[in-house]
């Protein structure tokens, strides 16, 4: 019962803050409310015993990526005339929601009808760094190495892009 109340609260916080995120006019407001979304998603990870992913979500998403976004937003010194004048922003949001709503309604209906819950019994150290790490370095070695190449490419690409070409 306690878990259900926690889940409902966190889900409500995540949905409301993500709606604020897509509808705020200034980018700094949407970045700050996106931090709230990410932290509540991290708490939802912790609610199903994914402790290592909880820590990773807090450190990488809410720590590194969002502070990078905030740093860039403040570094660019954005004034109101630099923002796009979205005169019909609310109308666009409403129209797109009407278009997207049937698809998500169909998906939710499918989830409600189907019998997807397996209810497996978790072993003692489920979701800890030992469990995830053993899995990562035994079955998932090739994707791990590919991700390291991808990170190297992104590093070189970021340096090349932001270099002044004179």
């Amino acid at each position, binding site marked *: 019962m306690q878990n259900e109340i926690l889940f409902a609260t966190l889900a409500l916080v995540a949905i409301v803050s993500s709606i604020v995120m897509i509808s705020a006019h200034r980018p700094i407001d949407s970045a700050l409310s996106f931090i709230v979304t990410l932290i509540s998603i991290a708490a939802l990870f912790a609610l199903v015993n994914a402790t290592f992913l909880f820590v990773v979500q807090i450190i*990488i998403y809410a720590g590194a990526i969002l502070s990078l976004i905030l740093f860039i937003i403040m570094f660019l010194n954005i004034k109101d005339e*630099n923002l*796009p004048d979205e005169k019909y922003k609310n109308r666009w949001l409403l129209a797109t929601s009407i278009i997207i709503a049937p698809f998500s309604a169909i998906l939710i209906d499918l989830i409600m009808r189907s019998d997807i819950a397996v209810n*497996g019994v978790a072993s003692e150290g489920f979701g800890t760094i030992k469990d995830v790490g053993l899995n990562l370095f035994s079955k998932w070695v090739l994707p791990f190495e590919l991700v390291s190449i991808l990170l190297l490419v992104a590093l070189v690409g970021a340096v090349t892009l932001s270099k002044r070409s004179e």
Partner: protein
Amino acid sequence: MLKAYMILSILLFSIGVVGLISRRNIIVIYMSIELLLNAVNLSLIAISADMADSSAQVMSLIIIAIAASEAALFMSLFVVLFRNRASLDANLFDILGNKHA
């Protein structure tokens, strides 16, 4: 509990798609893409907890790494675009490179 997690994930994904389609501010578009990745991560973690198998957690760890590399590229793109056009309007960025048409 798994169904509730999946429904929350679908709702977050739909909100992300709405933001991605209807906004013109590139920073908000980028954060909507991150919201899509997070919704997928949420459903992966719920499935992994339900099946008591940590493979899906490794998968979402890899998705987080991909999102980090995407963040690095997006940030340098923001800096370059803002330096060339002094705006964040996605409608202006229709050509890549510095030839002003």
